[in-house]
């Protein structure tokens, strides 16, 4: 009797059924290149996770160390320029891809019942992606970061009634300082990756459960 690794795993975890489900499910004929933007967004997210983890090894979130640490990544580390540039470029391209994906779903009417909930998770994923961009923009602590964050937090601060509280929460105080950096850093590298991954899982589960929408 020959017992391979696959048999061992199959008896315990039913891996053959799972891999068959993955490999053999059929993709409808009407799926064309317009359907690839959601997948490209996910690819961008994985590039961001990989490059972001590498950057996190060297980045130091405080007003006095942030800029020099990013400079060190750029000038002092092998491929540091490429890693940081990939992270910066992919951030922008990810947002473009989310928007194009949303437009595709919107104009194909793929949001219609029974897929309303997947549209809701998708819109939330869009806002999370934008928040990712906003929180990451401050981290290098250069002139652009500082003033974009100042303008952004002032816009939030002008919200009726709750504005000043939202602004104080965002900045962790009344001006951009050490606490702002660690707050943005925590949101950028801990909260958003966890929350976005959970919503992504729900997004993908619903696609598999409900299938790809027929054209209008």
């Amino acid at each position: 009797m020959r017992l391979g690794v696959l048999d061992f795993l199959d008896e315990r975890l039913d891996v053959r059924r799972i891999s068959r489900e993955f490999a053999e499910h059929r993709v409808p004929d009407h799926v064309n290149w317009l359907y690839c933007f959601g997948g490209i967004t996910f690819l961008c997210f994985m590039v961001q996770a990989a490059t972001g983890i590498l950057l996190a090894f060297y980045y130091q979130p405080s007003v006095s160390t942030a800029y020099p640490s990013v400079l060190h990544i750029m000038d002092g580390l092998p491929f540091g320029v490429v890693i940081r540039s990939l992270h910066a470029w992919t951030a922008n391209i990810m947002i473009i891809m989310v928007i194009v994906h949303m437009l595709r779903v919107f104009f194909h009417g793929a949001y219609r019942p029974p897929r309303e909930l997947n549209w809701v998770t998708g819109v939330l994923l869009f806002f999370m992606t934008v928040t990712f961009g906003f929180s990451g923009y401050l981290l290098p602590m250069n002139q652009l970061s500082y003033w974009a964050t100042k303008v952004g937090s002032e816009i939030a601060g002008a919200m009726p009634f709750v504005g000043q509280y939202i602004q104080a929460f965002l900045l962790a105080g009344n001006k951009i300082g050490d606490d702002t950096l660690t707050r943005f850093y925590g949101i950028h590298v801990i909260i958003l990756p966890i929350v976005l991954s959970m919503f992504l899982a729900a997004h993908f589960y619903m696609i598999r459960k409900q299938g790809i929408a027929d054209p209008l």
Partner: protein
Amino acid sequence: MSPEMNHSHDDHGEGGVPFLPDHFVKELAVITLILGILFFLATLMPAPMGLPANPLKTPLGIKPEWYFLSVYQILKYVPKTVGIAWSFLIFPPVLMIFPFFYRFYARYKYGRLIIHTLGALGVFLAVFLAALAYLGFE
């Protein structure tokens, strides 16, 4: 899920192509292309470092990132409270829940057309406002 709710193809039926290898090969091609573009941009146009943050020196023509430009521009034309209420409190929830009214508006002959036209106008307006902000129009 009732049968009339499920518009999807039968995943294991006759229609379509199998995910492996037919569709997966195409996905690999797209992944390769996109990674190629990303590396091309990152190596030939590295992210600039800029000057270190200086709270005492406001640079000329400060603008938010490109994806906030349309919101930024709206705030120049309408009262701040209105613009912010629209951008943060009205638009996102409306965008999120409109599909739940599909059965209501799709009953009408032009219901879907009207919703999609509104969407197209919104996209056009957002791009137009962002372009104005980018070019520095007041």
